[in-house]
């Protein structure tokens, strides 16, 4: 592998890893704070991608479409938490698994009813099209760099939110002792609603960002969900820092594997995850 190819792959891997982090962050946040394993998290990613495609076609502006989609996703998150998730806090984890599997069915079906089963694509916004020259005979698309920057910005915002704000303080407190937080007069119910809605919105934003880089197809949510599980497990369930490290590792490893060992590239992240769990059974940044 030439140095040039190596760097291109490395950047690809980091960029893919950052996107994975954005999807996985919502999953791990919801699990860490609420103890809920949301199998429908991938569906929210799909919803984001389809919504942005729909609104781009409607309004013609990617920015407007992205904002509209993110807001709708936030509302959807509040609605789902209030109507369904909230009823299951006192039930066991398997009931939650069952409920979220039911949600996958519903979302996949709604997608096919509303938008059909044809694959769609979203054009890269004009201001971000084109590419930057990398070396003499290779270049890198501007949109991918933009996507990576957005992912880093959101990661930073999330870090700020969780570690510096009052809401973040409540989230961290809720993670370690929910009864105590409740006893201190915090309305834990609305805290949970907010956290779940943020989780849904993060997944949808990832779908929005990914839309111009990938095709929008039925079932896109499920394939991303499993990769997210791998990311979150490697990092340690519930740890946002862990998800960040896990996502970059998975992104880089799978990008290089696709070039170096194509016949095994699909298996390699699972092998990596199993190795990590054998050394650290609770993931790299276990709490």
């Amino acid at each position, binding site marked *: 592998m030439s140095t040039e190819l190596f760097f291109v792959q490395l950047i690809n891997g980091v960029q893919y890893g950052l996107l994975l982090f954005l999807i996985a962050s919502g999953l791990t946040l919801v*699990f860490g704070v609420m103890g809920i*394993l949301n*199998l429908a998290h991938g569906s929210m990613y799909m919803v984001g991608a389809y919504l942005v495609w729909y609104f781009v076609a409607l309004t013609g502006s990617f920015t407007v479409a992205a904002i509209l989609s993110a807001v709708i996703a936030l509302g959807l998150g509040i609605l789902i938490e209030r109507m*369904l998730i909230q*009823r*299951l806090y006192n*039930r066991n*984890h*398997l*009931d939650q*698994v*069952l*409920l979220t*599997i*039911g*949600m*996958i*069915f*519903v*979302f*996949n*079906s*709604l997608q*096919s*009813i509303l938008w059909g089963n044809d694959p769609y694509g979203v054009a890269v916004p004009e201001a971000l099209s084109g590419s930057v020259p990398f070396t003499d005979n290779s270049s890198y698309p501007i949109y991918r760099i933009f996507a990576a920057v957005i992912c880093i910005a959101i990661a930073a915002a999330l870090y700020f939110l969780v570690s510096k704000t009052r809401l973040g303080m409540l989230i961290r407190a809720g993670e370690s002792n929910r009864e105590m937080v409740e006893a201190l007069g915090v309305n834990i119910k609305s805290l949970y609603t907010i956290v779940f809605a943020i989780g849904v919105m993060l997944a949808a934003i990832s779908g929005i960002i990914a839309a111009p880089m990938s095709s929008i197809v039925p079932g896109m949510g*499920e394939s991303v969900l*499993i990769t997210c*599980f*791998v990311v979150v*497990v490697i990092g340690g*369930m519930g740890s946002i820092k862990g998800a960040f490290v896990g996502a970059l590792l998975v992104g880089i490893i799978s990008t290089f594997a696709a070039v170096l060992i194509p*016949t*095994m590239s*699909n*298996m390699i992240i*699972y*092998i990596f*995850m*199993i190795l990590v*769990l*054998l050394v650290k*059974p*609770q*993931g790299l940044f276990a709490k």
Partner: protein
Amino acid sequence: MIFEKRTERIFLAIFFLIALCIPLFMEDNSFFVGKITTILILAVFVMSLDFLVGRVGLVTLGHALFYGLGGYLFVILTPEYEAVNFWIYAFYVLGVSALIALIIGAVVLRTSGIYFIMITLAISQMGYYFFFDSLEFGGGDGLFIFIKPETSIFGLNFLNLDNPTHFYYLALLGVLITLLTIKIVLRSRFGRIIEASRLNPERTEALGYNIFAFRLISYVIGSTLAAYAGLLFALQYGYVNPQFMTWEMSGTALVMSILGGMGTIYGAILGTITYEGLQYFFEHVSEDWKLFMGGAIILMVLLLRKGLAGYLEKLLEK
């Protein structure tokens, strides 16, 4: 009596009575008999999962790996154009599956809780991609069974697997054997320790039992039963492909078992029939059957706390 609850006895009596008679009335309708055969095979798979998740406490999301292995191992182990003996080769397939389960179990049982769910998922995904990306095992198309095995025992031949009705009774026998195996295991001293280690692992360990070993043996039993179900399914349809091993397959089985009533074993049969029945019904009513199916699943989670078996028990016990 290995069937402790009244509801359980009533349900199983009605189930086996109806199941035994179905082919008598439906002899001409081989599609229907085939459909019910598939449901019976799935019930074997779901019971084996219910045993692991509900009774041993091992929540696996990778159970379909063994379902697929049952099919693949059969095709791999048998000579291609020869009618082998079903019982002998089923024995080989289950033996190899048990060995694989022993090795995988020794690895995955080092983790627990949510990490166990995830590591089982990862291993079954590895299996999926192993077969999907392999040329020698047919890749995404999978492998075909060209000649169905014969089933003679000591020279006596009761069953012709090409006959849907005969195959139906083979599947029903599978349900009976699986049910009895699980029930007998649970009633034994071994089963009591398993139950204890699910309810209170620390205390069971303090009593001197090696929980790891007990769980490992249970994992091998559950996985081997799943492989038997996969073997039957592959024989019924004459092929095996990576779709047998998807995580959706594991997830669906988990849904069926929770729907029926986790850990009740007979509830797994009830859950499988209900799920398949609903799906069949919705598929015929509407193109968007998934919407109704999803809605039905969500409603049942919200309304039935202990699954269908729990609801039945509320009606029939006392």
